[in-house]
């Protein structure tokens, strides 16, 4: 009898550890998802409804890279993911840059129009994916060394691809923080956010800053889309699945605050995984939305509010 209860305790402990890891994993997924949106929304005040579709662009870039490696460089399949992430970043960065220069910049000071215009853009992109890649899901192969789980003990399995996402998100977040806070360009970007007219007066090319911020935000979405092919599905509507969660994270955390985005994704992720285990997936969503509504009622600017360009 005692041995079975000890065994059960070990299993329960294992589940507890795995649940905590799930929370951590979801936290990094949400953070990666929302990071690009937070930068664009926070620094520029642009609500980009096509953010999800830019993530899908990253996912499709990954798919194309994988197909290319499968066909031409099968020996290098183990490292294709790094190439794919890099390519996804480059493609979406370039797309974001062109998009800002050719489209978004005509909509500054018209937030509602931006909302509508980027939503229209998201529909156009979805239909483009559907025409090019077909309505069916495409399957992105998982690199061999990332499939499977790390088993520190017999009852604990931590999926390797999730560990990879955790590590990558930490790197990316750190990178973004360094860019914004430790480089000349970051300084300029923050200056423009705080006072556009004054920044322009002291010789900062504000147009260029805008374009690069938007491109960076898009590039981050591309990275997110690329790594999510490991856990989720890739189809023309993929972006729609992520956009709502991304917005909840950004709005809940408070715009213009990286710390807020991080804190809000952590809170939402832990709540989601814990409640999902104790209740059901749908109830967890209900509880989180209730929390978000309550918090926004008392703090309309989110958890970590700071001044944003109007």
């Amino acid at each position, binding site marked *: 009898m005692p041995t079975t209860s000890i065994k059960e305790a070990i299993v329960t402990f294992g589940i507890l550890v795995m649940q905590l890891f799930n929370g951590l994993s979801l936290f990094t997924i949400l953070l990666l998802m929302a990071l690009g949106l937070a930068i664009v929304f926070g620094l520029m005040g642009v609500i980009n409804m096509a953010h999800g579709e830019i993530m899908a662009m990253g996912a499709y870039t990954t798919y194309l890279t994988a197909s290319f490696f499968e066909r031409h460089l099968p020996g290098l399949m183990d490292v294709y993911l790094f190439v794919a992430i890099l390519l996804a970043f480059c493609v979406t960065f370039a797309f974001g840059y062109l998009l800002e220069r050719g489209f978004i910049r005509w909509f500054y000071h018209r937030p509602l129009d931006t909302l509508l215009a980027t939503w229209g853009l998201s529909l156009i992109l979805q239909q483009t994916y559907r025409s090019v890649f077909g*309505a069916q899901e495409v399957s992105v192969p998982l690199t061999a060394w990332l499939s499977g789980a790390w088993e520190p003990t017999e009852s604990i399995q931590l999926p390797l691809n999730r560990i990879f996402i955790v590590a990558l998100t930490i790197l990316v977040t750190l990178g973004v923080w360094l860019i914004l806070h430790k480089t000349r360009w970051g300084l300029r970007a923050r200056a423009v956010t705080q006072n556009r007219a004054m920044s322009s007066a002291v010789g900062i090319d504000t147009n260029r800053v805008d374009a690069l911020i938007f491109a960076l935000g898009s590039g981050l979405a591309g990275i997110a889309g690329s790594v999510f092919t490991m856990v989720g599905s890739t189809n023309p509507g993929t972006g729609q699945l992520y956009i709502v969660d991304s917005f909840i994270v950004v709005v809940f955390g408070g715009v213009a605050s990286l710390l807020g985005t991080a804190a809000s994704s952590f809170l939402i992720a832990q709540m989601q995984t814990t409640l*999902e285990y104790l209740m059901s997936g749908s109830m967890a969503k209900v509880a989180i939305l209730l929390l978000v509504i309550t918090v926004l009622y008392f703090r309309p600017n989110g958890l970590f509010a700071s001044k944003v360009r109007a």
Partner: protein
Amino acid sequence: MSKISRRRFMQISGSLVAAGAIPGAGLLTKSSFAAEPIKLGLLHSLTGTIAIAEAALVEAEKMAIDEINAAGGVLGRMIDPVVADGASDWPTFAEKTKQLLQRDKVAAIVGCYTSASRKAVLPVLKQSKGLLYYPTYYEGQEEDKQVIYTSQEATQSVISAIEWMAKQQGKTFFLVGSDYIYPRTCNKIAKPTVARLGGKVVGEEYAPLGHTEFSSIINKIKAAKPDWIYSTVVGGSNVAFYKQLKAAGLDGGKQKLLSTVVSENEIDGIGKENAVGYYACMGYFQSIKSPENEKFVKAIKAKYGQDRVVGDPMECAYNSVYLWKMAVEKAKSFDVDKVVAASSGIQFNAPEGKVAIHKTNHHVSKKIRIGRARTDGQFDIVFESGVIEPNPFPKL
């Protein structure tokens, strides 16, 4: 002179041209030998979230129409397909049905995929006296006068699947589904069946539609250690579910899982390597060995590309067109009431074998099969039932 606007000018000249053209057109039809083609509506989502599953059905239906036309049409008339896009939006389905019936005057419609879209269409069918062939497996609990259901309803697949699973080793079941009518009804049927066979349900979980995070549900599965997972997760969520099961160490070699939703078409997106070893329960598999099926698969590949796979709903969509044609020929009329009356008892040698429309309840009797996914994304058929009569309103 300048008072005549451009629009007015177009109206006048347009009606003049039309007036001139119509008598000529009438003459032409009368003098030509072939009768006017008969219209058949194909109503599926070609855009939006459900297009993933639905777009391929139109292709199968068009192929059946081409075959029938090549063989001389139906009652001497060619079939003219009218494709409408339901856009994954239920009111749009109703709107397009109205358009097909009232404007295009189609003789029948093959269409819909989700139950929500079918329910939206029902009142329009009733009002405009339309006829719908519904080619998707679904949860049952319906028997509409204007609808012929050409795929398996839930009791046909779920009861066969649970009975088969219980015969294998182990009798504990974990039920996972999307939070939607099909999974919940399937599990309502599964639970008493499990109990009847002396098994035990050790967990029942629902994930919101479109959910991509299954880690918590997977941990619950790990804690419950079931012999079988019975899955009714639908749509893109399946991709996330299968990938995450595999990453968590519960791949097809270690954990037995059966789904009544995942066909060859879904495996295309899930990735062959993620689905290997899991089971699926369907009426049709591409790997069925019969002359009818080999011909069917070959024709699909010749028409739509060698790497195309064929899943259960595609085959049922293909059958639907033939079942309509046979009913029309039996009734010797395109009239909806006569076609419905003639449908009762009709048999068709489908790629999956003989399917027959039930005498009274508008569903089909057919065989059910269980397959195990191979490395190439196809299924090894491990079980084939006898012919199962449909029972859309089971007493549980």
